[in-house]
């Protein structure tokens, strides 16, 4: 048994395996399939200051080794989360982390400050990278100034661990990561989905209601590994890697590219027990290779 514990700022993770926002509900949806307390953390569905209905159906299209979605941050708002969902999830013995989105820096900051008051939520993940909303989301994550403005506003009103989720739909992701670090982000997670599109040639229109969507699944993994590698070399804060992880070997690639922890997203739709399998697979791999801890291989490929 290798040491699986890792740290993201002050946040101690039992193991490096977390779930990605928007793919795991609030965790409770998967409680029949896996012991939730066996995970390093659960990033719950994107939460905004006010309720959002999201985009129209259809919101999903299956693609080669992946899928597109344009859900558009459907959620019942932060107050509903605090009153109705938090009581159901606060005693799950893992890091319950809320993904926060907004349409202005003040929106993000207000939402974050309400979550700051919840004892059992030790961290938030700022979503400045959602490709499926017009008002905010990725608009902030594609420029250094935009990213900095959100992180600055939130940092003033949020005291705990602050993770910023980065968009791959940029020219230089390392620049954006550095801007977030400079404004006090404790960690960055990447990648959010890659903007994409799929057309139904019989109907001669997009398969998605708003035209474009975000691509996830194994199709994006090489892009994600490359970006994690670039960002890990550019910043001093811990990096959380995600994008198409289906197996322990995939997760280890991200860790070797410089990620301290990983998130598993779309794979949960294919196998709801995948997270635990990845955790156990990392453990076995470390044992088989004579490694005493995950820490030993973080950034192993960053030469």
């Amino acid at each position, binding site marked *: 048994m290798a040491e699986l514990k890792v740290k993201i700022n002050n946040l101690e993770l039992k193991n490096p395996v977390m779930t990605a926002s928007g793919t795991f509900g609030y965790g409770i949806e998967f409680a029949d*399939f896996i012991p939730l307390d066996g995970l390093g953390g659960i990033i719950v569905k994107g939460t905004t200051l006010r309720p959002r209905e999201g985009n129209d159906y*259809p919101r999903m299209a299956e693609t080669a080794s992946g899928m597109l979605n344009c859900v558009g941050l*459907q959620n019942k708002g932060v107050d509903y989360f605090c009153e109705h969902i938090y009581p159901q999830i606060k005693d799950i013995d893992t890091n319950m982390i809320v993904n926060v989105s907004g349409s202005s820096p003040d929106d993000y900051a207000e939402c974050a400050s309400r979550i700051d008051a919840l004892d059992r939520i030790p961290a938030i993940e700022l979503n400045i990278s959602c490709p499926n909303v017009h008002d905010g989301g990725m608009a902030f994550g594609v420029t250094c100034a935009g990213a900095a403005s959100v992180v600055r506003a939130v940092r003033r009103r949020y005291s705990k661990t602050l993770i910023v989720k980065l968009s791959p739909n940029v020219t230089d992701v390392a620049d954006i990561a550095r801007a977030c670090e400079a404004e006090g982000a404790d960690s960055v997670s990447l990648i959010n989905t890659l903007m994409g599109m799929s057309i139904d040639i019989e109907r001669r229109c997009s398969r998605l209601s708003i035209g474009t969507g975000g691509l996830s699944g194994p199709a994006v993994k090489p892009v994600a590994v490359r970006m994690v590698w670039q960002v890990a070399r550019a910043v001093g804060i811990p990096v959380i890697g995600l994008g198409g992880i289906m197996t322990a070997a995939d997760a280890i690639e991200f860790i070797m590219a410089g990620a301290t922890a990983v998130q598993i997203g779309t794979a949960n739709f*294919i196998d709801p027990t995948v997270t635990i399998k990845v955790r156990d697979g990392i453990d076995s791999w470390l044992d088989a290779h004579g490694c005493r801890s995950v820490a030993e291989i973080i950034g192993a490929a960053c030469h």
Partner: protein
Amino acid sequence: MKKYVLDLTVSAVERINEKYVLIRLADDKPLPDMLPGQFVEVRVDNSPTTFLRRPISISFVDRSRNELWLLVAAIGDGTRAMASLAVGSRLNCLLPLGNGFTMPSSASERVLLVGGGVGVAPLLYMGAEMRRCGCEPTFLLGARRSADLLLLDHFRRYGRVFVTTEDGSAGERGFVTNHSVLQSEHFDRIQTCGPKPMMVAVARYAAAAGIDCEASLENMMACGVGACLCCVEKTTEGNLCVCKEGPVFNINKLLWLN
């Protein structure tokens, strides 16, 4: 209800015609409880182009043989791969998912089960479970042509069966909503599953006749458990997940009639 992820064994693949197959799945252990109207998310391992699971209605649960029946229309790569499964192979299934149809409150309740195409699938199990409770269902089943009327002999075991075909090759010609039984008899409740235009027509008929009506939806979905929010339907309560809050909805909750 507790959900399971099970590797079930294919015990039979019965080819009904060039488009439809009935897959029977068995397990060593007793199958979990399942309700009529619930569904299964099937992982398709033998199709390289199929990434996501495929949601398939529970068509029947044969308790005596410990078998689960899935009626599948082979229309895409995933369902075609399912149709070509060999007996003895394994099929990874999440089940049971979603909410079922409302069961009759008394044996005297007159329930009409209206199905179209492959949408007849969940109505077989519904009819069988109703019959177990002492309530005889009436089935009204529609198809394009007689060859696409599915599992008729099975339906006849549990209740009266009325049929429509679009080409008139069996039963009354036309759509289910044109069938004369709707004029000649009274029903307390209608439960329907099939193509959306058919279900909307059934819902309109039910609403106009003042009959309680439930419809089972089949929006495209990914996770099947209410996590990804891809399969939403607009309702009086906002966007709801067909996989978790459905797939069965009372038509009063849907915005089809507005």
